[in-house]
């Protein structure tokens, strides 16, 4: 089923990603996103304080920062210690980013429908829909002009999970096309950092996105398109729930201004003094004059498929039988090039009738043909020929072959990575008789094996407040089918211990447990290594992985060969630094089960909680959690396959997260005292002639809007958040855009990163609605006004 079913419509093109990099900072802990404040303890030693920030912070943010000024606790974080990366500009590569994303249709660079298929191996290019553009669009902003979709990292310092907010997907136009109105936002899946490590850079990372649209959310303009007509007809005939759109993004490149857009050229990867001075000057111009603001988006290639969606399928992640990588296989660009060993990515497989369809959108690694090309072009590595078959506790029965010509770039571009293989009746039966495996034909290396159980959260990447109760629905499948009722899932909460760069996950615990967080090589922090301690082992001697680069510059994860004696840096010690993040639980399970584990060397007891949930008749389990502390909890689900409780690891690498079953959440702080303080303060000044100025200067700006002013310089073009006049003049719009209703799904939600705690929202709304909208009445407020 899913997009692997027929009919299909294929799209191909380019994506842009425009994040605000002063916020999404890969290297420096500029923003304490747990407390939702600028990270003053980090900034103050640099001479930047709350008192002088209005004149010091932005100049510092855009000025080259030399290595000598980077604190040790920042440099020591694995990936951050490469001295060649400094000086760096703290704002990084896209100061004015607005979180927009979407497909590119600029001059010769187009994102279009490229073809379709009504049945296996019957590719159609002659159709009225083919060559028309497609786009993800946002919600309207007082105009019929389209607004972009937006992407938001659930955690500003963790690249593993990004939510994609959009209002609609539009294929074609009003005369021939299809508009699909959003039901489910997207969350990236199978984000595979391993290829960055293997091949050297984020260019090689691939991820998968998916959303599904109920029938009633579709607006058809069939025109002369047989592809659209067939899709609509088959949706009805097969009683599908609606349509599914799945796409992959890969081959990400930076600094492509002037090629993919008409923004001024900039090279933010060059950290020579001259290049840094140029970038600083350009940023300064943009800060001084909003007409000089420029974007510097990243760009990826993309390929996707629109197909049928059935009600028992995960709406936001590939369902069906899933193969995950096992052993590395040799790959090479061509017969004469070097061979590199690499693991494959995730493969989805579905059998419908006599056809086996594989989704290889995220399966085989690729490389840029020419890294210096203005418009990068990808080619698939030749990873050899494979046999797909079944394994029953050992014996392998090959069923079908998969060769390079089926997964090379041309094939990928044609069908967005989908491959259809005709099967005989016996082959069909054989494929149903055991666990799927993909083996290298030459030597039988098991490249991928079936992940029999899968569990995907429907409502992913939620933002909740401390005190909120939140329920997640988890769709569980076994062998590609809804799990039997009563299937048990164990759930544990994990967190990240650094306030900068993507890092490993650790179990949330409630006591003062301690463990080596990373291994420090004094004098050579570039070799520092992260750890993944586990219960019952010698945690300080865990095999450590050395990460090269962080954020955009992440390029390798290798076994550390430094012969020097590293110094373990303990979690409890790092927690005292301005970049430490507590691993205390942010969530409380409804039915917690208290657990205890012991780490060794040093011995440390870990008190943590897990819970058990069970699937219903539809294979769906519900988990209810209560938010108890601000932070970035990531829930991990473990299927209990036997009578034994599954092993709950103390930690796991972010590089492995792409095949785990994870649900990231963000818990925003609750500050109930703020509401009382606001009322008290207003009541002390409301009779004064300058009450409006006082409540702004002493409350609204410093306590609520200030961090957003610093983190989103793009707002200065539309609503400068440090200007009472400008905010007052846009109060009607602000009231709509900060509303709780809009936080969940609107692409225009303020703040765009959705990190506005309810207490701050309540104060902001009361100020806007009861003071600004009434022109600051000389009357006292009461706490009951928050409820009116």
């Amino acid at each position, binding site marked *: 089923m899913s997009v692997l079913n027929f009919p299909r419509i294929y799209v191909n093109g380019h994506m842009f990603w425009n994040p605000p990099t002063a916020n999404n900072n890969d290297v420096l802990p500029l923003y304490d996103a747990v407390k939702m404040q600028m990270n003053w303890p980090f900034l103050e030693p640099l001479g930047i304080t709350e008192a002088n920030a209005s004149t010091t912070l932005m100049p510092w943010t855009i000025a080259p920062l030399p290595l000598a000024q980077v604190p040790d606790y920042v440099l020591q974080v694995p990936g951050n210690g490469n001295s060649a990366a400094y000086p760096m500009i703290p704002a990084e590569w896209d100061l004015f980013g607005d979180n927009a994303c979407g497909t590119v249709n600029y001059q010769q660079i187009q994102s279009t429908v490229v073809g379709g298929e009504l049945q296996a191996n019957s590719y159609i290019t002659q159709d009225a829909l083919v060559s028309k553009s497609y786009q993800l669009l946002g919600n*309207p902003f007082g105009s019929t002009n389209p607004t972009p979709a937006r992407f938001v990292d659930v955690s500003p310092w963790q690249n593993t999970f990004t939510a994609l907010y959009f209002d609609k997907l539009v294929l074609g136009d009003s005369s021939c096309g299809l508009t699909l109105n959003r039901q489910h936002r997207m969350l990236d899946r199978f984000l595979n950092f391993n290829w960055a490590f293997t091949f050297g850079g984020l260019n090689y990372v691939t991820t998968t996105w998916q959303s599904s649209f109920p029938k009633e959310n579709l607006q058809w303009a069939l025109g002369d398109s047989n592809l659209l007509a067939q899709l609509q007809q088959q949706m009805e005939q097969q009683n599908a729930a609606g349509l599914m759109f799945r796409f992959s993004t890969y081959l990400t490149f930076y600094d492509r201004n002037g090629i993919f857009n008409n923004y001024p050229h900039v090279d933010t990867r060059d950290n020579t003094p001259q290049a840094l001075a140029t970038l600083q000057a350009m940023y300064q111009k943009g800060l001084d004059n*909003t007409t*000089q*603001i420029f974007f510097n988006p990243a760009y990826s290639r993309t390929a996707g498929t629109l197909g049928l969606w059935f009600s028992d399928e995960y709406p936001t992640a590939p369902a069906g039988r899933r193969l995950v990588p096992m052993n590395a296989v040799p790959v090479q660009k061509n017969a004469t090039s070097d061979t590199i060993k690499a693991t494959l990515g995730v493969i989805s497989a579905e059998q419908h009738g006599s056809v086996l369809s594989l989704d290889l959108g995220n399966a085989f690694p690729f490389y840029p043909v020419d890294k210096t090309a203005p418009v990068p072009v990808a080619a698939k590595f030749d990873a050899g020929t494979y046999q797909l078959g079944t394994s029953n506790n050992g014996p392998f029965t090959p069923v079908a072959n998969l060769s390079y010509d089926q997964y090379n770039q041309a094939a990928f571009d044609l069908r967005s990575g989908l491959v259809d293989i005709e099967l005989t009746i016996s082959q069909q039966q054989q494929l149903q008789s055991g666990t799927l495996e993909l083996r290298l034909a030459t030597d039988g290396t098991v490249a991928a094996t079936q992940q029999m159980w899968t569990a995907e959260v429907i409502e992913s990447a939620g933002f909740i407040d401390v005190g909120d109760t939140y329920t997640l629905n988890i769709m569980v499948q076994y062998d590609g089918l809804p799990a039997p009722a009563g299937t048990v899932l164990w759930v544990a909460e994990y967190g990240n211990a650094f306030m900068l760069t993507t890092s490993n996950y650790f179990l949330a615990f409630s006591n003062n447990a301690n463990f080596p967080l990373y291994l420090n090589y004094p004098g050579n922090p570039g070799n520092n290594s992260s750890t993944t301690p586990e219960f019952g082992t010698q945690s300080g001697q865990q095999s450590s992985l050395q990460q090269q680069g962080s954020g955009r510059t992440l390029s390798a994860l290798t076994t550390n060969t430094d012969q020097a004696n590293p110094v373990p840096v303990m979690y409890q010690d790092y927690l005292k630094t301005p970049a430490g993040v507590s691993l205390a639980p942010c969530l409380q399970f409804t039915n917690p089960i208290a657990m205890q584990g012991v780490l060794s060397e040093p011995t440390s007891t870990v008190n943590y909680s897990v819970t058990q949930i069970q699937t219903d008749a539809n294979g769906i389990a519900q988990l209810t959690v209560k938010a108890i502390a601000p932070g970035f909890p990531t829930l991990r689900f473990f299927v209990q396959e036997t009578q034994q409780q599954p092993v709950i690891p103390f930690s796991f690498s972010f590089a492995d997260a792409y095949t785990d079953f994870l649900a990231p959440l963000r818990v925003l702080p609750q500050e109930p005292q703020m509401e009382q303080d606001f009322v008290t303060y207003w009541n002390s000044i409301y009779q004064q002639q300058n009450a409006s100025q006082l409540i702004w200067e002493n409350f609204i700006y410093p306590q609520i809007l200030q961090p957003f002013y610093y983190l989103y310089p793009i707002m200065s073009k539309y*609503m400068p958040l440090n200007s009472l006049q400008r905010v007052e003049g846009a109060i009607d719009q602000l009231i709509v855009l900060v509303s709780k209703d809009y936080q969940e799904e609107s*692409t225009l939600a303020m703040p765009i990163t959705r990190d506005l705690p309810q207490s701050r929202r309540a104060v902001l709304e009361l100020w806007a609605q009861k003071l600004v*909208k*009434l022109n600051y*009445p000389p009357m006292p407020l009461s706490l009951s006004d928050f409820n009116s």
Partner: protein
Amino acid sequence: MWRIVAIFLLALAPAACQAQSQQSRFDCNNFFNYGTSASATLQQFNTSPETMAWNWFTCLNQPADAYGLNRVWELLKPTDQVYLPNGAVPLPYDQREPTPAAVLAQANTLGMDPRKVFHNLDSIQQVDGLVLEMGGAVPPEQQGRPVRFQLLMGSDTFNYINAQKVYNVNGQAALTSDLNFPNTAWELKTSWIWIGTNQTFMNLLQSDGYYTVQAYYLQNGVYQVGYAALSGMHVINKLTPDWVWTSFENINNSKYTVTNAIPPTPMHNTTGPTPAAVPVNTAFQTNPVYLPLAKYELIGVQHQFNQQPVLLANSQLESAFQSQSSCIACHSTAAYSKTKGYFNFALAQQGGIVYPTTALPDSAFVGYNKLDFVWSLKRAQWQR
């Protein structure tokens, strides 16, 4: 005075008499009160709203006196003289709070004419909360700075506000019924390209047909004094029950103002001139009698709901939301509630913001007193 001025204008271009259309012979005498007969004016208006809009525009732009120092509309009462700080009672219509001494001092230094009006261009934000940026051919020091705005009202508008004591929020909060302005109520909203003291830029704008004035505004406690060029003007009156909505702007605005796109692009009007306005524009713009107004164009006229044009916007005053801008619909939401404040016409729809382009149902205004389309009342302050 009006007749004298009309003769003065005609005398400027005697050779054009043959080419003058009927519009040029419009009698500006007492035009704020529709001459001798509102019904006759209405009849004439219904014949060609666009012609009447141009007639009013020419009357407003006559010299206000024999010296030609100011134009008629410049002597209307600006809102900063009506809605005073602390909600104080405004001075009578013809009297003015004094121009700030700091402004006059700077003006003196700059050699400005103290007999001319100093316009307080006190606003920069449009009703969608955004500003319109200057760009294109403006000098570097003005790039990115906002186009400025000033609202003015006629005597009967002011007198009604005064009589109803709604010049402050205390008075608006005390309302027990909707407001109902007299049919001789007029308001103007003007937009301005800030010149400052750059004589070259002023010459450029004047050569492109912009009318320039002496102006000032307060920024961070400091008065900025200089010249400004009129880029747009809404002219409204209550000749019809839902008011008459007309809008003019300079045809060269796209040279000096830009969209908020990144990078910015020239700002154009996407709602007009309407087909009905086009020939009328040509008639007036090519009539030498109206040479000082030749670079201004009428965008269109609205006076009834659900009639063409449904959309009407000035590129200088409704820049970014032109595609959802309807003067009559937007102003029909002018309303005040003691508990909710001023009506929010930024409608939370489709997961975003939508502006009304037709009348909202009465149910939307439960608990509000309607302000008879006059949104300038939002500028009122509380008397503390």
